[in-house]
């Protein structure tokens, strides 16, 4: 644990680690700040611009994103000033125009007072992300920075940007881990397990073969993912790696019972 500092959010004093993003502190303390592109495992990138706060004391004075605002002693912010409300509303209007298919955006827009909704854009039936993607980039980053796979990336620039596999071709490197879909704030990424295959419908219909549980015969996880995981966690017990989660639990609990040891998987 690093040095502790005191910061003020909405006139209340909170303890924070020095350099800790204000958004993280707010989330921990249950203070409402909407955000879409923040994820604890990744470095804040300030892409969605929704977590705006107003800095009353400290730098940079005025409106800024709380995910990139780092805690220092004496920092004072307000999360719901008229300025914050005004800009947050317009940003949500931009999102409504961009992602007409997203329920999450509709919910946020309603919550933060976007009453007058412009005639919303038609959802492109060919959009593999169903008009839900807000280009926050979490999927790209988790695939790169956490999984180290780099199966998907940005394509194009500006408002022509899309996220998909290179050249919209089936990915040869995707391991089917589904991490992208897990972190997506608008549930835009469609992935489905069909018999012995996992199909990344949003990612140019990339497919990953599923492994069959040695014990019960159920298909449970992509072969490549298991291989990849074994590379990272070589302590993963060889006995259980070919088992589905249900059977794994059974086998492991038996082992724990015998050895009286706990297995902690990070």
């Amino acid at each position: 644990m690093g040095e502790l500092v005191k910061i003020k959010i909405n006139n209340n004093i909170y303890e924070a680690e020095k350099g800790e993003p204000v958004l993280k502190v707010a989330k921990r303390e249950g203070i409402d700040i909407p955000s879409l592109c923040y994820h604890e495992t990744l470095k804040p990138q300030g892409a969605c611009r929704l977590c705006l706060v107003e800095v009353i004391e400290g730098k940079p004075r005025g409106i800024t994103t709380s995910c990139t605002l780092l805690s220092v002693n004496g920092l004072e912010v307000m999360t719901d000033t008229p300025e914050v409300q005004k800009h947050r509303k317009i940003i949500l209007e931009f999102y409504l125009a961009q992602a007409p298919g997203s329920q999450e955006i509709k919910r946020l827009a309603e919550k933060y007072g976007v009453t007058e909704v412009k005639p919303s854009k038609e959802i492109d039936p060919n959009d593999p992300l169903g008009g839900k993607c807000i280009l926050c980039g979490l999927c790209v980053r988790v695939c790169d920075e956490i999984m180290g796979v780099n199966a998907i990336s940005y394509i194009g620039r500006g408002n022509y940007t899309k996220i998909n596999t290179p050249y919209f071709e089936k990915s040869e490197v995707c391991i089917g881990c589904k991490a992208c879909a897990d972190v997506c704030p608008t549930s835009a990424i469609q992935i489905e397990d069909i018999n012995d295959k996992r199909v990344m419908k949003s990612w140019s219909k990339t497919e990953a073969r599923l492994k069959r549980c040695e014990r019960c015969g159920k298909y449970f996880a992509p072969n490549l993912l298991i291989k990849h995981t074994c590379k990272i966690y070589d302590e993963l017990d060889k006995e259980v790696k070919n088992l589905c989660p249900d059977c794994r639990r059974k086998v492991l609990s038996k082992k724990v019972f015998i050895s009286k040891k706990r297995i902690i998987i990070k």
Partner: protein
Amino acid sequence: MKVISIEALNRIKEKGLKKLFPDKLRIAVGFATCGIAAGGDKIFAEFEKIIEERGMQVYFTQVGCIGYCKEEPLVNVTLHGKPLVIFNQVNKEDVPKIIDGLLKDEILGEKAFCKIEKWDHVTGGEIFYGEGFSHITNYTEIPYFKHQKKIVLRNAGLINPEDIEEYVAVGGYFSLFKAVRELTPEEVINEVKQSGLRGRGGAGFPTGLKWELTKKEKSEVKYVICNADEGDPGAYMNRNEMESDPHMIIEGMTIGGYSIGATKGYIYVRAEYPLAIKRLKKAISDAKKYGFLGKNIFGTEFSFDISLVKGAGAFVCGEETALIASIEGRLGMPSPRPPFPSQEGLWGKPTNINNVETWSNIPVIIKKGSSWFSKIGAEKNSGTKVFSLVGKVKNIGLVEVSLGTPLRKIVYDIGGGGTKGKSIKAVQTGGPSGGCIPTRLFDTPVDYEHLKEIGSIMGSGGIVVMDEDTCMVNIAKYFTEFTQHESCGKCVPCREGLKEASQILSAITEGKGEEDNIKRLKEIGETIKVTSLCGLGQTAPNPVLTTIRYFENEYEDHIIRKECKAKVCKNLINFYIIPEKCVGCMACSEKCPVGAINGEVKLVHTIDQEKCIKCGTCEAVCPLEAIIRVSKQSKNISKTYSG
């Protein structure tokens, strides 16, 4: 041939001076991109041919650009002991005439534009070129040059940019010698701090302070970067600086590297600048040969090297964090700061990035001292700035003036005012993210603070002049479309906000504007400015916001009256042929790409408004100015001239 001592450096200087002032005639053709575009390469070839044919004893070479683009192609001639004479708008036919005169030790009066008797090369001091030629105007009498102060462009257009010895002849690399041999890194930084130099890339951050921050970071490896990703439409200051005097940038960067403790520098230059790249490559390789780059510079412990990185043409890569990402081979997207590049820059190491022009000032500050430098310019704005003065102004070119010079002086005294007797309406400073400034504010001093006050920015130094024929709504649309296109797409206000602004502006120029458009443009403009991640988004709404601020009446004309008074917006105008003026020459009907013009030889022509696509070709080719633009709303003219 590594130079270690001051004596050796002086010997190179002597060699260089012999090239600038040879015993024989010296002819140099302006050979920067602007000169070549105007036909300089053909002039060069012509001179070469005739010189060879006649077996003349000439020191024939090329120089960069002195900045007077309107007068290109330019040719410099030095007869031994006489002033340097500049010939302007030289064409192929002029070449033999000029040479004939020179063979008789004469200068062809009518083609000689001006002469230079002495020139302050700043780092090399004042150099005397020669006296005589009373029939030729001195350059100090030419309004375009008279009001300029050349510090960055101290050698541009006078030395051969591909000859390192000529650079040394005019004081080059003496500042580097002084820095590494006589000054400590702290003293260098202090000198730069005291000089008051601020970043010339646009933001105006104090350069010395930036260096100090990078120096303070503890790291074995540090980098310096030269930002040469110039991308503003109509701006080419940096291009000319690289093409005309590349060594000053290398010298500046090396001094910077010495003071902050870096051993490696990168120049990030856009790939669309092939000549700048070629000259920088040559300059780097020559500097290595002479030992101005490489190991143990001037026999000291200090080693420094520079590499070139070519940018693939994204405007946003001029933003420093995006630029770093691009050098690393990642997507050119800005990242939030902190960490600043001075803390975690290229490959996570402390990095100091400065613009081409900032680096170019460094040798001057070291040579002349901070107190000399800080006296030039205005309060908190020391030094000069190079502007590219373009658009609807008589004298187009690169203009270097002391900071704090009023806009009026730049546009009228140097620029010569509007073209074709038209009156000037506004200027836009600072590139696509700058604001449009109306003539009534032309007394504003051009410095970082004053420009910001009136809603614009210094930017990297573009000045686009607009006259009565410019539609301000259309201008706002043009620049917004540009920034929308160049937005990296990472953050939503810039990506989606500029798109919406662009759509609204398009609708207004098409006559489909609605009453609440102005309010909405202001509202989203403000949000884009306040909430965008990087400088691109934070400044991109400036053209819209300033045109609304200063020219709201034009928006109202378009929205309420569906009228474009400047007669630019195609949906709101028609082209008409004035029957009284038309002689039936058929020039227009032959050129019309859609066959919309009817008429026989020697009979009055008419335009079929249904077919017309309003390309303006007819207007441009009509020799009698019989074709005019009329507002669709002005029924009278339509009736009179609709044929």
